């Protein structure tokens, strides 16, 4: 059981890192539905870099860099060019899906490096994720820049007349979000499953995106949601540990996804929204043009 929890935490770390970056980015008003693509790209380049240089640190840096770069590109399309954020995000996803398959293919197989040390039985990325969650919460709710970020996502023109450079804030946030998505991909390919395969995430990026909506843009709820999803995922893979032999394994496999839909629906009900739903950044997904 403890083992199941450990693995849930490690799986949830991947979701948390990506979703946390997206949360910050959405707090500033930029929606990036191409999260999965950024994670794929970050994971692939982290893997290749780590394998060719033999350094985990360089691998992680490569993941951060490529994620940041793609985030920046999304920023350029959605902030400077004021394009449709969904189009740009989907573009990044499909782009990454295609290019990482091509670039990574020759590297298919295990990473083949000495494992990252796991203090107290958990990968260091788990601790990093928890620290980042706390830091993000402090940043968003307790600091001036956090207030500026939230205001840029709620009412960019109000932020602008308060002397905030909305474009700069959004660029920073979307780039930071990209970096975290890249880090999340790196966590997958360097720690969670250090074996490169094409399209290795199989939709976890979209799950992360769903978690952001679920979290009501609060990092702590995000952490809880990700842990819950990851536990569900582990349960669906090993139901014999808890509820042996009830359902077909294939039906079990659908469980995390079914639950996601159910939870998304519950938090979207008017009953829920009138109590909690005000957290949605008002200007989310809308390009902002100065007057």
């Amino acid at each position: 059981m403890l083992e199941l929890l450990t693995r849930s935490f490690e799986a949830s770390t991947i979701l948390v890192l990506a979703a946390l970056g997206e949360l910050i980015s959405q707090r500033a008003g930029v929606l990036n539905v191409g999260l999965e693509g950024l994670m794929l790209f970050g994971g692939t380049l982290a893997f290749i870099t780590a394998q060719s240089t033999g350094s985990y640190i360089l691998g992680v840096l490569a993941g951060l860099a490529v994620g940041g770069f793609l985030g920046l590109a999304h920023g350029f399309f959605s902030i400077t060019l004021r394009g449709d954020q969904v189009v740009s995000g989907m573009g990044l996803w499909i782009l990454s899906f295609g290019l990482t398959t091509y670039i990574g293919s020759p590297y298919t197989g295990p990473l083949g490096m000495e494992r990252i040390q796991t203090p107290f039985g958990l990968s260091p990325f788990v601790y990093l994720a928890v620290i980042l969650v706390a830091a993000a919460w402090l940043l968003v709710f307790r600091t001036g820049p956090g207030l500026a970020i939230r205001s840029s996502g709620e009412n960019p023109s109000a932020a602008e007349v308060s002397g905030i450079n909305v474009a700069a804030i959004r660029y920073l946030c979307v780039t930071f979000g990209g970096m975290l998505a890249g880090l999340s991909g790196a966590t997958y390919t360097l720690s969670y499953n250090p074996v490169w395969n094409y399209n290795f995430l199989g939709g976890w990026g979209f799950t992360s995106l769903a978690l952001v909506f679920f979290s009501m843009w609060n990092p702590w709820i995000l952490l809880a949601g990700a842990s819950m999803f990851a536990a569900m995922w582990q349960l669906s893979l090993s139901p014999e540990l808890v509820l042996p032999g009830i359902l077909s394994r294939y039906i079990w496999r659908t469980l995390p996804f079914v639950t996601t839909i159910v939870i998304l629906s519950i938090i979207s009900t008017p009953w829920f929204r009138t109590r909690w739903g005000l957290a949605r950044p008002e200007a989310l997904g809308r390009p902002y043009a100065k007057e």
Partner: protein
Amino acid sequence: MKPLLSQPRFAVFRGFALVVLLTLLVGSSGRAPAPAAAGPQKPVTLAILHFSVIKGTTWSGAHHRAAQRLAQKYPNVKYVYREEVGPDATVPFAKELIDNGANIVVGNAEFMGLPLGTIADQYPNVYFGSVIASDLTQKRNFIRFFPRQYQALYLEGLIAGALTRTGNIGIVSAFPNIQVIRRTAGFYLGVQDAAKALGKRVNVYVKYVGDWYKPTEERDVARTLASQFKVDVITQQTDSGSPLDVAQERRIWFVGKDMDVVGFYGWSNTNTVAVSFDTRWEVLYDRMIRDFLAGNQNPRTMLYLGMKDTMTLADGTVEPAVDIMNNKKVGVDAISPRAKPLISASILKLVNQRRQQMMKGQWDPFFEHAFISNGTGLALKGTPIPAKGSVVKKARQTPSDEFLLGKFNFDLEGMIILK
């Protein structure tokens, strides 16, 4: 002074003349079916349609390497291939390859059998091949083939059974189908023979992923086996490298399948991989090529080859269709140097003995052992899972190939299938 026409020189001249003469003879009789002896001159193109990517999978990777070995051995054999061939592209790619000169077209997944079968009549001079597809109608130039991997798996089972300290062995498996059940049975019989010989109890856990290639899920399944079911020897009937990686991470033994991942891919080392086996598809392809070169209008359309069937490679090695192999070593030497001291001499001897017997065709695990149903498995249309404990086949009885390839639908008694 030596005579003008010294002996050696004359010999060379005579030899040259003979070659010219022979060449003329052969050239002039070009329309007649070429005799087997003149085979090496006739070009053959072997085309493989890989259902998946080559790199990163043990299955297509093994086929790819097999074809390369054949091309090495026979200078007149050319190898062409296509990767990730979906069902809709099977026929067009096959036709395109034939138009470009392919003589033998092989699909390495069952789903290609049907489409290739449909065009077999259109190209009477081409051989078509598919890994076993049991419901296909027979066609003159359509070859069904499969290696008897269960023989090598039996040897692996012996080694795994001897290696385990916790008495728990895990299999990361795809999903129940006849091939998987047959392979697992071979492995399981080996494990139980080793357990009996050593007087210990060994559990074999099978945990299904649900698909052949799901890297993330395979990893989690492998980790569950390692941590929850305390397995210290793990093997897989899936295609990704994740279970191997888990074994390496957990420092438990890994037993490989279908290919020597240490020797050929360098994905790991013998500190993790206790033993593996290699499927030499080239032995099967070699039979087809030889039939083709012989101008056989009726090739052997059913190739179910095992350890007693061999071929000689370019470098002179004789290799059977399947064999345990690890880090390019075969037989008992395939066992990892670090694992060997942990295995009692009696088992090592048994491994060697059984291997020799199988290579001579004197012994077979499926002949030797009874098939007693575990009551689990795969219900097929018209073939329900035999009741638990029922003896489907007695010991020292040869099961038919049809049974092994199309009806073997139950797990052997004592296996633990995790649901």
